[in-house]
């Protein structure tokens, strides 16, 4: 494989974890709620997926259990935030801390190891083998990818359709800017928000499960390593629109892929690991500058 194909393949392999979570971030952003707990949901999802896959020997069951589990966590978030009025940022910080501690604790309790858990009995997610692409330049990057890569891309389309073409999507979109209007229309905003947070948790669960069963087949301490926050940034990058968010995650995965390759050439690892975070901040700044310029131009013309 040539360099370009390899970077493309790595980008595609890194994409789903962030993409699932960023869709989860996107829908909560639609109801005007910053959910920084994406990171924690993902980490717990990654752990649950590995544990269930190890015990049942089925990746299907593992994903199913993970999605349900993370959905419940999202629901808990909703209850504490909406019913008990706990600050969403405070809950997020707590969830991330909880995820870090509880996964380490259970890794030690269940498997008696620290740092990382891997075993041949962990069944990974299936891959889609497209042998006919092997010989085609660039497209050969698609020849052996996890089915979750396609699932993630499919969910971008689904989210787009649901948000813009269905009644429930309209309600979600309206809840952010004008919850009163939605309430007046006879829709329970409280229940709607609960559902959005639950689904957000489920999506993060998918992201986590992909990370530990698709991208790798193991669990390591803090294996999400900031991906949840990057996902949130990607959703901001796309202004909470599915297609734009997809491009955001593509950009971040690409910069991740490039830095992974750069690591092979002996650059200091700390500086390389720093790059995705720097790229994230710079992207946000550039986006804000562009937005500001557009607004100014709008004023001048108007």
């Amino acid at each position, binding site marked *: 494989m040539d360099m370009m194909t390899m970077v493309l393949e790595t980008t595609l392999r890194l994409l789903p974890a962030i993409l699932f979570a960023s869709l989860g971030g996107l829908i909560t*952003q639609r*109801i*005007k*709620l*910053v959910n*920084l707990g994406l990171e924690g949901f993902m980490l717990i999802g990654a752990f649950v997926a590995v544990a269930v896959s190890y015990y049942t020997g089925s990746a299907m069951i593992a994903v199913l259990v993970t999605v349900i589990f993370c959905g419940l966590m999202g629901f808990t978030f909703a209850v*504490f*935030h*909406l019913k*008990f*009025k*706990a*600050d*969403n*940022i*405070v*809950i997020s*910080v*707590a*969830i991330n*801390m*909880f995820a*870090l*501690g*509880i996964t*380490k*604790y259970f890794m*030690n*309790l269940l498997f008696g190891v*620290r740092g990382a858990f891997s075993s041949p009995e962990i069944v990974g997610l299936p891959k889609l083998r497209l042998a006919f692409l092997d010989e085609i330049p660039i497209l050969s990057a698609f020849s052996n990818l996890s089915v979750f890569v396609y699932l993630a891309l499919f969910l971008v389309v689904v989210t787009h359709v649901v948000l813009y073409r269905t009644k429930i999507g309209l309600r979600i979109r309206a809840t*952010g800017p004008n919850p009163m209007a939605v309430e007046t229309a006879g829709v329970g905003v409280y229940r709607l928000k609960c559902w959005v947070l639950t689904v957000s948790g489920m999506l993060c669960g998918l992201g986590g499960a992909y990370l530990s069963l698709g991208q790798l087949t193991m669990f390591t301490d803090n294996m999400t390593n*900031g991906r949840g*926050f990057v996902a*949130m*940034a990607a959703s*901001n990058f796309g202004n909470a629109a599915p297609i734009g968010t997809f491009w955001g995650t593509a950009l971040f995965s690409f910069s991740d892929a490039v830095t992974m390759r750069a690591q092979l050439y002996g650059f*200091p690892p*700390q*500086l390389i*690991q*720093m790059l995705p*975070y*720097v790229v*994230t*901040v710079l992207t*946000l*700044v550039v986006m*804000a*500058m562009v937005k*500001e310029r557009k607004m100014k131009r709008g004023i001048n013309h108007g």
Partner: protein
Amino acid sequence: MNRRVETAINSIGKPLFAIFVSLLIGAILIIPTGTSPIEAYSILFKGAFGSWQGITTSLAYATPLLFTGLGAAYAFRAGVFNIGLEGQLYFGAIAAALVGVYAPEMPGILHIILCIGAAMLAGMLWSILPAILKIRYNIGVFITYIMFNNIAQLFSDYLATYPFKGELSFGATYKVSEKVFLPKLAGEMIDLNFGFVIAILLAIFLYILLFKTQFGYESRAAGINVGFTEYMGVDAVKKTLVVVMISGAIAGLAGAEQVLGVSHRYISSFSPGFGYMGITVALLARTNPLACIITAIFFGALNNGAIQMEIFTNISRDLVTAIQAIMIIFIAADFAWKKRKGIKKQEKKPSQSKEEVA
């Protein structure tokens, strides 16, 4: 009088309730290990407070938490959610270490002041950038702070592993000059050092600043209602920047304490999340600087005891991290105490979500 009792119940009862519930959940989590929760907790408690060595070690653990807790509490009071303490702490630590190692020959006291000053300046500068991005471009501080935390840690680790690597085989700087060591308070073997005294004094100072001065009044007013402060003629933007800078400087101080008082050099990835734990300390203390002293010692003891528990039982110390997180959630939740006390339930305000878009 009645209101006072109510406030007291709210500010003491609620944290106690949160502690109780989280320890209970912790106990449930302990059961599958086969150790009885009561035995585990008593080992934890004995480890933390059972001996002079245990107590002083707990206080040593509490010191960085008190600093970061104060940094968080002060910022929260003024309505700024500084979750970037971790990064500010890292830059404070590396700054103190570099000045401690490489500054030219000078009297000891001056050198210490220079080290601490450098740490505070580093924390301050690193805290202010996200705030400026927020004010100038309306980029949400939450994500930038977290990104900045990672960047600060990785960059400090890089400095200690490449350009300023010391004699050790891993990423650490040289030992700082012996003249800048903070004096130990409980013998050479225990990490408790003069930094603890500084932290206590700082808590008292912040309490006076917040509750007894005009500046503190304005800060607190800004925290309660930004719009209202503007009405009073206080420049909210400037105020926010000052608050963030002070908070960042305190976090930098926490890093300096770890370098000058404990490890005597910068060691890569030394913080187990002091910055994030500071948030718990501040929240449990209901952002009161004096109460932070108690909550920081509580968490210091919890962390110290957890290590003892890990040694003597099969329970991993990570349990305590999870317990702390549960504590945060319960302290942040409002279970409507008023209703339970039979006072007419007030109409709840619609829930406010932080909607800041980064």
